[in-house]
């Protein structure tokens, strides 16, 4: 029971500490991307 709770807390910490910054970095990459060419560019 106690070990299971520890594992759950550990998994949540990992998601916050790795998953969240990774997604933020990914989101920033998308935001920094140059705008796509549209028909109006031509």
């Amino acid at each position: 029971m106690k070990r299971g709770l520890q594992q759950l807390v550990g998994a949540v910490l990992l998601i916050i500490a790795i998953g969240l910054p990774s997604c933020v970095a990914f989101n920033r990459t998308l935001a920094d991307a140059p705008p796509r060419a549209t028909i109006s560019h031509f």
Partner: protein
Amino acid sequence: MPQIYRKEHGNQWPWRGVLLYVLPLPLAAVAVRAFASGDNSRLIATLVALACLWTGAALNRRGLQAETQFRRRRIAAAPRTPRKTLAAVLVGAGSFVCATWLADLGVLGGAVAGVMALTGTLLAYGLDPREDKIAAGSTGGYSTEEIVTALTQAEAKIESIAQSSRAIENPEFSSRLERIGEAARSVLHVIEDDPGDLRRARKFLHVYLDGARSVTANYARTHPDARNEELDRNFRDMLETIESSFKETRQRLLQDDAMDLDVQIEVLTTRLKREGVI
């Protein structure tokens, strides 16, 4: 009291540790994008973060496997390299790099993320086993290290017999070899229960297992599918002798019957010499 040998069925949690591989996946896309746009500093930061995180994930998996082996045995030396602890440090470092330079959370935010990742890894996967599992009762003058080495070498020989067995297509021989492997493992369990038996079982671990391994490997190499009745008969006789010897060894170890065991070993040694195996 010796316990009945039960066949073990692989890793109970094959997916343990996979989360550490999955969570950094968005960074792979960031790396591709940084490469495509020629943003070298971002590319380097991403690659460093990914290297730390995935190396940590791989190290963590190895640590978990070593821990499974350690827990399975009744006598075992603690893993020499603290893989899970090193993995937690690497994961923390990777998270720090990712949060500081890729998510722009600043050094303080990165440090918090790094500490959280390190703590999370240790909480989720635990620490490495640190203390050897020492044999209860008399060890017959052997150190835990010596006992573990002897058992590990014997396990490797049994695994080698199983590998050769897979190359043999004859189902009768395969099932007999499987029984031999189980009988051999049950002898190892007797030694684990009473390591004082190691002295008496040493000949078994060397003569019997080496003999069984050589016979099986030679047969698998020379007759993978060709049928030769005389050779098959010889091989069958040899396997029968080995199987019954293994079972008797276990019984005699349990009965502390040293003299009978020596006689039994001499009989098999003579047989193996006659067949040119040893």
